[in-house]
């Protein structure tokens, strides 16, 4: 053996006659892979712990009596490995294992979805025998089992590699699919019947239901993707296409701010499936079910393809040509400019489109009344003059990319506040869980209760009555102590905006302890909109609008007169809505906002009705388009190129998947601007990227962080409680429309109450409880949970629980509780 340069923590070995240096503890199969030697395998997956379950990767190791499984064998100094390429023994062993695996495999490849991209099919051809000596009857099972509305299990195709069970246990933490029975009857199955503890979930977790427990996981689609045979298939893609039909395009997920890279497969102009992309820095090889299956909204029947304008005679919307509609929009906006135009952009925009809105508002409309935040910005009832969140975003978020997924995984301690990672940022949840499992990451959560998601990341709960988060962040010793270690992270969610003083306290706490601060919004476009300048107090690039030098530099770059960009902060979403409702504003320009997401949907819809001129840039019919004077159709994410910015501040660029004539928001705005003699130059994605890259850098120190006094939680009276609420991952969001199968995997909406409320109301688990305000009420089955006294939790926007529309309040508000369905008066209210 020749001497090869190697470090002390390395060993050298020989594989197929080639000497190679490997890290100590590395697996033989991984080293071979690096050398370009493909050893067949089923159970081996680089992100899962070694199992040695399928035995397909047998290789010959000199000195060993029998072939060994290379996926569990770690390298050793001087080891001599011969794979099937150089060893007849290994080749014969592999062929034998393949023959055994195929004994009970039904070989129904023609009907199987995996056919054509199946590792079993491929490796049977490459390393299997030409024929089988097995002549007996094959084992048969009932097929397929629906283990959730989305995931189907064909047990007879299974080769028992346990990738799915290891994924659900190691990565997702939802263990409800497992190996069952013994010997030839061994199979993958779900905990369903009495024998497997039908009364609970059978996994020691908090039971989400009883008996027939569905595969209740937000990550179940990954098991389909990693299944090396066709045992797990998805309902949505079932029998739809073959791999050779599909055109694959790398894409980025448009749902949440996690920023998953994806692969979108389409056939003849129609997206058929999406798979998790491989990006080790972000989503590794996983994604959530929402990102995987939530793409059918773009082909929904209510898609708008032609511009519409409101007919002056009939008052109804009618279809119009692009030139007519653009002219109507331009004239209406020009006429309304005097009184003021508000721009609401929503959180679904790409960075390029958000920049187009920000630039359009400043240069064409001459206003800073632009806000991307389509959600409650402050606590119910707080004065609209507070700008705590906007100030926080300017000081601690805009232009800052300090915290990454890698840091989350390797941090000694993470404090979460106002964020339920599993529901609101699933890939962040997976990273937190990886850190917790592999590196003993300590998670502290400031939350109303220890949810199943928080349990799975081993979080220590600092119980907070909604409204008390600010006080806890400001003064709780446990939280401050958890942030003391170097590298500790404070991760706050967008919901903290509804607690007065909470974002101030968070920024303050981070500065005090030296912990890094990350802000995690819920939507894909949120973070990018901040940096693109879709805020009333920020210009593109995180420059404050009050800064004269920044405005001058930007005016120069945009080639507009110095006075065009106003120097006072504009109105935020709530104030734009209020100004539109009381008739102050002359027009609204709305892109991708659902009024139901705003703090008060009724007021928002009033505002849309009242405002004299309403322009809507939308993809599908919505509450906004129905009220608009001009509706301009824009492209869904699959039909345009763009960039999302994930919560880290990382750019997730993607190209158009489908060719279409649909236009981006930026191109539509550019056309309107052109009619008003302004050259917006946002029609081409690459031009926008160049322009964004060429903007003069901000030389100012970042603005001072807000200092709002920490509020305390409201004090509920008898029969009242404080409302805790957040979104569930799969809910009534408009990007999940059009897919009943996916909706079937949503968690059932329940009203969570503590023992104290259950006792005082005389409720047991599953009894109906009604949560009401003077606006209306929500009735859901109660789930008795370990909540702080006098707190009730509701899903924000799930079937039967639309908190903002039905109750008109947000988290921290006081609501009344009654047992059972509402009485006649409340029922009347609810119906109204």
């Amino acid at each position, binding site marked *: 053996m020749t001497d090869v340069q190697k470090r002390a923590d390395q060993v050298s070995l020989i594989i197929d006659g080639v000497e190679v240096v490997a890290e100590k503890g590395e697996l033989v199969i991984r080293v071979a892979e690096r050398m370009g030697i493909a050893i067949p395998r089923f159970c081996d997956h680089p992100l899962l712990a070694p199992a040695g379950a399928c035995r397909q990767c047998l290789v010959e190791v000199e000195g060993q009596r029998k072939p060994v499984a290379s996926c569990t064998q770690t390298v050793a100094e001087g080891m001599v490995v011969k794979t099937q390429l150089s060893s007849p023994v290994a080749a014969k062993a592999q062929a034998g294992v393949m023959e055994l695996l195929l004994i009970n495999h039904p070989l129904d*490849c*023609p*009907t199987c979805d995996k*056919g*054509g991209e199946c590792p079993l099919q491929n490796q049977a051809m490459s390393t299997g025998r030409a024929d089988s000596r097995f002549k007996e009857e094959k084992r048969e099972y009932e097929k*397929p089992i629906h283990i959730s509305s989305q995931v189907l299990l064909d047990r007879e195709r299974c080769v028992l590699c346990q990738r799915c069970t290891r994924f659900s246990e190691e990565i997702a933490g939802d263990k409800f699919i497992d190996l069952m029975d013994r010997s030839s009857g061994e199979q993958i199955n779900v905990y369903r019947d009495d024998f497997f503890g039908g009364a609970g979930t059978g996994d020691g977790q908090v039971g989400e239901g009883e008996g027939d427990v569905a595969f209740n996981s937000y990550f179940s689609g990954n098991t389909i993707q990693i299944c090396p045979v066709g045992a797990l298939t998805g309902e949505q893609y*079932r*029998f*739809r*296409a*073959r791999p*050779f*039909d599909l055109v694959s395009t790398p894409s980025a997920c448009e749902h949440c701010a996690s920023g998953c890279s994806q692969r979108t497969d389409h056939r003849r102009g129609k997206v058929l499936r999406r798979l998790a992309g491989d990006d080790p820095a972000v989503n590794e090889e996983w994604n959530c079910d929402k990102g995987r299956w939530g793409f059918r909204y773009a082909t929904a029947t209510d898609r708008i393809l032609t511009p519409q304008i409101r007919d002056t005679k009939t008052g109804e919307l009618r279809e119009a040509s692009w030139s007519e509609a653009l002219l109507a929009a331009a004239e209406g906006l020009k006429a309304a400019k005097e009184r003021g135009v508000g721009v609401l952009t929503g959180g679904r925009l790409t960075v390029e489109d958000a920049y187009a809105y920000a630039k359009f508002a400043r240069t064409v409309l001459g206003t800073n009344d632009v806000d991307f935040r389509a959600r409650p910005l402050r606590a119910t009832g707080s004065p609209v003059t507070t700008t705590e969140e906007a100030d926080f975003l300017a000081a601690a978020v805009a232009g800052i990319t300090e915290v990454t997924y890698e840091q989350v995984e390797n941090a000694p301690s993470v404090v979460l506040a106002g964020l339920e990672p599993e529901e609101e940022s699933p890939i962040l949840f997976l990273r937190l869980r990886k850190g917790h499992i592999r590196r003993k990451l300590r998670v502290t959560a400031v939350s109303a209760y220890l949810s199943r998601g928080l349990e799975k990341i081993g979080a220590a709960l600092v119980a907070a009555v909604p409204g008390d988060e600010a006080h806890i962040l400001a003064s709780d010793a446990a939280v401050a102590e958890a942030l003391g270690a170097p590298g500790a992270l404070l991760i706050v969610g967008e919901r903290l905006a509804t607690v007065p003083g909470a974002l101030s306290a968070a920024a303050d706490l981070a500065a005090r302890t030296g912990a890094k601060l990350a802000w995690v919004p819920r939507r894909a476009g949120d973070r990018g909109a901040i940096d693109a300048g879709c805020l009333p107090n920020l210009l593109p690039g995180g420059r404050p609008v009050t800064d004269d030098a920044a405005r001058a530099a930007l005016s120069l770059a945009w080639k507009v007169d110095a006075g065009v960009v106003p120097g006072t902060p504009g109105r935020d979403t709530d104030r734009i809505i209020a100004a539109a409702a009381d008739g102050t504003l002359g027009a609204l320009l709305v892109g991708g906002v659902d009024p139901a997401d705003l703090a008060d949907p009724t007021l928002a819809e009033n505002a849309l009705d009242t405002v004299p001129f309403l322009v809507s840039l939308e993809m599908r019919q919505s509450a906004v388009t129905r009220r608009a004077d001009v509706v301009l159709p824009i492209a869904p994410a699959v039909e345009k190129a763009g960039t999302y910015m994930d919560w880290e501040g990382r750019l997730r660029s993607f190209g158009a998947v489908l060719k279409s004539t649909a236009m981006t928001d930026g191109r539509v705005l550019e056309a309107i601007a052109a009619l008003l003699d302004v050259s917006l130059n946002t029609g081409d994605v690459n031009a926008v990227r160049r322009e964004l890259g060429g903007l003069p850098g901000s030389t100012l120190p970042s603005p001072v962080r807000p200092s709002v006094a920490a509020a305390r939680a409201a004090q509920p009276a008898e029969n009242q409680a404080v409302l805790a609420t957040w979104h569930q991952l799969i809910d009534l969001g408009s990007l999940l429309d059009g897919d009943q199968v996916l909706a079937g995997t949503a968690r059932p909406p329940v009203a969570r109450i503590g023992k104290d409320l259950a006792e005082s109301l005389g409720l047991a688990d599953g009894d109906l409880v009604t949560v009401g305000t003077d606006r209306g009420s929500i009735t859901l089955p109660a789930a008795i949970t370990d909540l702080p006294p006098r707190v009730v939790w509701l899903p924000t926007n799930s079937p039967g629980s639309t908190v903002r529309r039905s109750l008109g309040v947000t988290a921290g508000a006081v609501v009344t509780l009654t047992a059972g369905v509402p009485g006649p008066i409340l029922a009347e209210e609810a119906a109204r």
Partner: protein
Amino acid sequence: MGTFTGSFKGFGVTFAHMFRKVITTDYPFSPPKPAPRYHGRHILNRHPDGLEKCIGCELCAWACPADAIYVEGGDNTDEQRFSPGERYAKIYQINYARCIFCGLCIEACPTRSLTMSNEYELARDSRQDLIFTKKELLAPLLPGMEQPPHPMLLGETDKDYYVGALTNPGTSVGAERAPISQGDAE
């Protein structure tokens, strides 16, 4: 002299042919019968109860070197059953403007659903009409067959249909002469 003998030679050939067997055909009044294995237009066969043999697996489309076949699979349900088993061809099209009649598709077919008939009269006066859909390709219903969708009549499971299917070449007799409705391709 040479001219004289030369024209005798030439006419000799002509006269000789007058007494040979005629090889021109009386097409289209009595069209010739091709060889039994002639690759004519395709037929999608049926099981004896009328269910389709095609399972929509797309192997024919995969095998096709001319990209002439388009298939989209679909789910059989107990209410809407077109073939035994779980899967059937929701859309099946062969584009005869592309097909080169090589027969690789029928070799690929795992259920002997797709076979070729001897029919060669495939000229149409529009490209659209050259795309044959299930309507044209499916074998006609013979006596005892029922138009799908209907439940499996020949057995409890799809296995009862497929075991032995290879020895039963199908019920495609006469399919090539099935009336073809033109212009309503899917």
